[in-house]
């Protein structure tokens, strides 16, 4: 079944020059392996198609149940050069949470995730 990331994670994003960073944090510890397995760099790069022009790097923080993504060349030049409303990448967090991931029904049941209405 498909599950929206909003049901299993929260996030915060920011900027370093033209790179946006998105920290994606599991809502419960047992959701973290799901994030590690499903929310890959390639998946995130594809999700931000048309927005992220560069590479996507991913770092794991199992101690926080979190992943950190660096989305290079994503902020229209970054800082004061950027003309974007969100030149600081503050809303990349919620943009990432739009992602839907596939979970088989058995695993969903085990994690207490029921089908969305």
């Amino acid at each position, binding site marked *: 079944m498909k599950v929206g990331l909003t049901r299993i994670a929260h*996030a915060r994003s920011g900027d*370093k020059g033209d790179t946006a*960073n998105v920290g994606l*944090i599991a809502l419960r510890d047992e959701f973290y392996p799901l994030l590690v397995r499903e929310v890959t760099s390639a998946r995130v790069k594809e999700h931000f198609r048309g927005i992220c022009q560069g590479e996507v790097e991913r770092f794991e923080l199992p101690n926080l149940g979190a992943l950190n993504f660096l989305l290079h060349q994503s902020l229209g030049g970054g800082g004061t050069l950027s003309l974007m409303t969100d030149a600081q990448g503050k809303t990349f967090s919620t943009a990432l949470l*739009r992602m839907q991931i596939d979970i088989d029904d058995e695993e969903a049941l085990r994690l207490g995730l029921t089908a969305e209405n």
Partner: protein
Amino acid sequence: MLTGMKDRVRIAAGQGFWGDLPEAPVRQVEGGAIDYLMLDYLAEVTMSIMQKQKARDAKAGYARDFVTLMKEILPTCMERDVKVVANAGGVNVRGCAVAVAEVAYELGLMGKLKIGIVSGDDILDRLDDFLARGIELRNMDTGEALHTVRDRIQSANAYLGAAPIVEALSKGVQVVITGRATDTGLTLAPLIHEFGWAVDDWDKLAAGTIAGHIIECGAQCSGGNCQYDWQSIPDLANVGFPIAEASADSTFVITKHENTGGRVNLPSVKEQLVYEMGDPHEYITPDCVADFTTIQLTEDGPDRVRVSGIKGRPATDSLKVSISYSAGYKAVGTLVYSWPDAYRKAEAADKILRARLQRMGLSFDQILTEYVGANATHGPLAGEPSPDLAEVQLRVGVRGNDRAAIEKFTKEIAPLILTGPPGVTGFAGGRPKVEEVVAYWPALIPKSEITASVKFLNV
């Protein structure tokens, strides 16, 4: 532990950026027991604004807000022995200290106040010497050589770490004012001073650095901008700014004053930990390299999160340098289109605008159109805009080196009201303003080139 040394030190954050809640530091000082008030005033481009202010007036070039604040809180700080550490000095640290001293005189604090002045970060006058000696100061992000922007540079500062602040504190000052010091150093320095941590005790230095990282954005770790269960976060109108309550063993608790709003819990602290994070294995500061993958968080009662387990590694041989340079001009114009077909109207207006700009022969380095209300923040992820949107704001920005071209652009927005699609409003602000773009150039410099200076002013 040495006799007289504290076993617990409470450091309160009072400003997350220059322009944060003016009353926050006052409430931190008056709302409960703290030992230090830490104030971060300097964003990356703040230094260029301050250089311009100083060029106009040799006495200016620092955060005036800090002086106003000191007038309000200095008597209470002295009465309660709250020490203040602030990077409010900008490009005129001495000028800032003198202004605080004047305030102290007015308040009748003569003979009681000692101010520490930390400078040596300003390298604007030394750039040509560096370049001549082969210190290239290449852009860390792009690899470009500095000479491409040399004649447009407005400010250049190395980020100082905790050491000179520790030196000032060791001489018994009540207030330490720095120029470009790292945000994290403002928190780490009091801990080194109070607990006598060794300069190569990397785990402890990393812990103090991470304490600084958590509280440096003010309420962003205590309920502000927190996605987790945001609707249940109580009383943000009365949000409590964070306090790092540190122990000599380098564990610490993030908390806030009682009877304040907001929330400190695992999710609020985790969100701040990942904010503006690069490679979590190496968070590099002048003081150490901190490893965010070693942080252990546990709830320690209501609005208390305990942080422990932090590992660090030796500091690098470099300091980060922040250079600002003039990079042309920009302007942003907006108009609001209403239902029905708000998005289509805004889109049509953009086409008309661009055709006119082209006919005028204007070209820009960058032109960007956004549709606020439809997809300005999430772009294509927002999906096809609904024809039923109540309104859409057309937002067009241009940037380029030719100021005259940008000026002409600003005169083309309002005419769209009478010469473009219908149902338009939202032009009350008049013509868009042309802004100078001051861009940021990050670089590295060998530590051996930078000597921090620590001086004192006795009031």
